[in-house]
């Protein structure tokens, strides 16, 4: 009965949620597709179980398609046991590149963090300068493993996975152009300032000279009064 309700092969398209880290990202000359098979370990020893498939349709745009199976109840109990014993949840990702090369990646997170977050995990696929995958790492951004209540079982049926495809950033180069422009602007401004500012010395610095004069006048005016006082 259970078997018919939760067929092993019935994959459910759960989330196609891709984020590309924006900014000065690296652009590739060639585009390509990457197919990733996800399998996870439900205990410290033993063989991995199938979790789903991930296809990066375009490494340039980072558009992905992800299909993951419903978490079966006996898998859920094993995952909860992992979380209870503060063990690690490990996942293996097998990548088939566009040149049909198979590379295996292993990643892990704290099982308790995964369960606490209600199976909302983030898979980050890091690409190198040529568009090849260098790392696939999983993390649970909401789990903190401090004994937070575990969501009820009916909420723990699906992985709510976010896929992040990260390109390399372009390295900065010394910004000589802007600096030279800035220098030129400043020079122009100065020249313009010089042309405009051909007033006389007094016209330019009257605001300093006047207080000085007043100060001198005041102090000299004060002295005749002070001198007799001292003489007395």
């Amino acid at each position, binding site marked *: 009965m259970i078997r018919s309700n939760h067929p092993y092969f019935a994959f459910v398209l759960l989330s196609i949620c891709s984020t590309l880290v924006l900014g000065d990202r690296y652009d590739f000359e060639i585009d390509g597709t990457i197919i990733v098979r996800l399998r996870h370990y439900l205990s410290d020893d033993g063989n991995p179980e199938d979790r789903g498939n991930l296809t990066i349709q375009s490494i340039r745009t980072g558009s992905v398609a992800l299909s993951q199976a419903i978490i079966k109840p006996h898998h859920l109990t094993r995952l909860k046991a992992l979380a209870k014993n503060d063990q690690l949840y490990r996942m293996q990702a097998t990548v088939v590149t566009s040149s049909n090369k198979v590379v295996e990646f292993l990643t*892990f997170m704290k099982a308790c963090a995964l369960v606490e977050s209600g199976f909302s995990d983030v898979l980050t696929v890091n690409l*190198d300068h040529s568009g090849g995958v*260098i790392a696939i790492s999983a993390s649970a951004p909401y789990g903190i493993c401090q004994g937070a209540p575990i969501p009820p079982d009916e909420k723990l049926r699906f992985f709510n996975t976010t896929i992040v495809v990260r390109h390399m950033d*372009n390295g900065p180069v010394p910004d*000589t152009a802007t600096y030279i422009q800035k220098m030129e602007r400043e020079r122009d401004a100065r020249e313009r300032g010089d042309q405009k500012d051909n007033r006389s010395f007094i016209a330019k610095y009257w605001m300093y000279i006047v207080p000085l004069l007043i100060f001198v006048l005041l102090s000299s005016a004060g002295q005749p009064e002070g001198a007799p006082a001292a003489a007395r």
Partner: protein
Amino acid sequence: MMTKGRIMFVLPLQVFFIFLGIITGSNCIYEDQVGKFDWHQSYIGALKFAYGDASGKRGIVATESNVVAALNLKTGNILWRQILEKEPLGKILYLSPSSGSEAVVVSGGSKPLVRAFDTINGALGFEWPLPGELNLDKVIWAISTDKLYAVSVNNGVDFVVNQFSLRSGSQTGKWQHNAPWAHKSKCVISRDLVICYSGKEIHSVRFSQKDAKAFTLELHQQIVNIRSVKSGEKPGVFLDFAENGSEQSHQVVLLPEQGQSIVKCKLMPYSAHWVLSDPNHEAVSVVQLILKNKVLEVVTTDCMSGKKIEESSSAFPFTISASLPQLEDVICGSRNDLSLCRLLVHTEEESIALLHSSGKQLWVREESLASISVVEMMDLPVSDKDAAIEKEFDNKEAGLLGMFGRRLVSQTLQFQQLLQTVFGISDPIQPAGQRTDLVRDDFGLHKMIVVATKAGKLFGLDNLNGEIVWQKMLTNVDTSSMQLFVQRTTRHGPYPAQCSLLLKDKVSNESVLYTFDPITGVGLKKNLGYRVLQAMLLSVMDEESLRPILLLDSEEKVYIEPQTAISLADSFAASTYMYVANTDTGIMNGYTLAQSTGERLVASKVWDVVFNPETQTLVNIVGKSPQERVHSQGRVLGDRSVLYKYVNPNLIAVVTQGTDPLHKYVLNVYLLDAVSGAVIFSISHKRAREPIHLVHTENWVVYTYFSEKWRRTEITAIELYEGKTQSNSGAFSSLLSPVNPLVERQSYILPAMVQSMTPTVTEKGITSRHLLVGLASGAVLELPWMFVDPRRPVTVTPEMREEGVIPYMPELPIPTESIINYNKSLPQINGIHAAPSGLESTSLVLVYGLDLFYTRVAPSKTFDVLKEDFDPFLISMVLVGLGLASYTTKRLASRKALKQAWK
């Protein structure tokens, strides 16, 4: 008033230079401070060729470090030193005296250069490139009567002689000799003969003549080794014969010159090293060096009779090496009497020594210090007196009475010592052979520099003057990858400090751990019996205050040294992670020890990062120093808010050099969390290539590289911030709720070639950090971090100005005041080591390479040190004077008040 007006019109550039003057003013020193807290030692490197010049005063040497130098034979000091180019251009292939007083050097890769240096002042006499192409692997070089010969041996066929005029460099001849017996490794040149052996025969041909006939001599035994005779009147060879039973015999054969006869000396049980001939008596004597039980015997025997000549033989203790030294030259001055000669030798430990034949060791140069691999600066232990006080408070379980008793005893001791010093009685109980001044000073400025060199020699140097305190040679070790761990510092009471050096066995390639006391050098070598892939210090100490070393071997097994610490390691296993990188496959693996038990440590793989070797190769991995302290958690911005630093102790920077069809060279820098295996940040520079030098501390990474596009060195700084809020102020966790840091980045032009780079380190991390950059010009630049700050804005906003950020300038200045080694240029800088001192302001710096240079730097000026011209005597005199004056005036005033009251 006027200055105020002027500043309003000053260029930002000038503001910048004023700023620069303020900041860097502290770096430079005054002329009278030269040598006050710095020292400089010059080296030449491991000896390759050497000879004593005609005057008998100078030894001319050429070394593995591409140096040609002259040594003063009286003192061993360097008279002059010429540093040739880097390899392959500067690799020295041949050194020989010319007929004038010049040293001729052949150096280079595919296109060798021939140079002559004046032996007196080291001036370059002439220099010319060798015309035509030569396969240098086949060439044996020789100089004879103003001609340079390059004899290339075609194994089993012939040898081709190229003759060049030494002065002009023109090729004056080329001919070939048929020599089916010739084999490069079995041939030597003595004078103008090529002498080869094959089986029992030796063959010789006069190569300087076009149609000379080969001469063959058959000996009675199989020959295994041949060395040429460089001295005496005749050409000849030293031969080692194959072992016959357990006996090995040796012989000297001198070959005829102009109608003379062959001289075959008597067979000898030890191999000979030198030939002395007396032109008047026609007699030839042979010098042998024999090392037995640390006694070096110099034995002179008569060639024909094999009898020992007692008056010119000697034996003396020899301590500088455990193996037989190699004799480079016998320098005799005018008369050829061995009892007046000096022997120039060099040893396996890369030391050069001059021995007098009577047994006096005239001088020793420790040239392995020119190839230092790892450095550590250790605090010195406290003095006995301080140790007694520490002991007093050490024992906690003693009761009230016990504590009181101990205090009485220790105070009696202190009183006794006081009396002794007052009455000038010296302390009679001083261990012999130990230097008494090696104790910790008040400011922690006196340290022990522990270095390990490529020759496998360990040294303890006094940091105040660079003197060698102890040395230790490790034999049969492969020093290509060495790691030095400080397991226990000197701060832990009765236990001595302990360091461990991890290296490999030369034969089995298995790892070897040498555990030693860094203050005395005494230690124990232990063969581990497995190949270590990764080693790290455990972050906790055991009950003996020792930090154990975790080792991961090639079969993913985990070991711990000492093994007794296994339970301690197990208690922290769940939070212990290790990583391993393989440069060939480009795979990095992370392991957790979480599955360990109390009996056995187990590493299980938890993450992989794969750098596909087809597109990129791993160049370097730089982690943070585990002892690092970050004092400020954030940076205060102009609007008074705080930008919190992303301080992840597990962050490592991985540098890969990629290839790309379009951009040719691509430089990638990945910031990886070594615990979770997550790539925190990655950046790629197009058309940038090695040499790459990277510094990784606090929340920033700075690296230099060569920009292929602009053909210049650029420096890039990356700074990581958590943002305006801090995720977890207590402890950092790589696994739970990881944060994606904000990344600031900026590039600058550095108008110099970088050899090495390191940040300054201070005790608490309060002092601002500077970068110490070793340049190819031989300068060490102290570059304030402020200058490479990625937040330097192009257009300055008032907020930024308030924050104290300097406006952006694409090119970094190299002001001469920031060169910490002033006019003492340091060639071939390999590394810079910075260590904290007891003073927060001061960082101790050792620059190593061909030379050693030690100095102190104070990045934020010496804020905790009194000025040198501070006069405590004057101050106290003034204070006392003022006190007295106020007291007397008070008395006078009160008397006056009393008198007035009576009026």
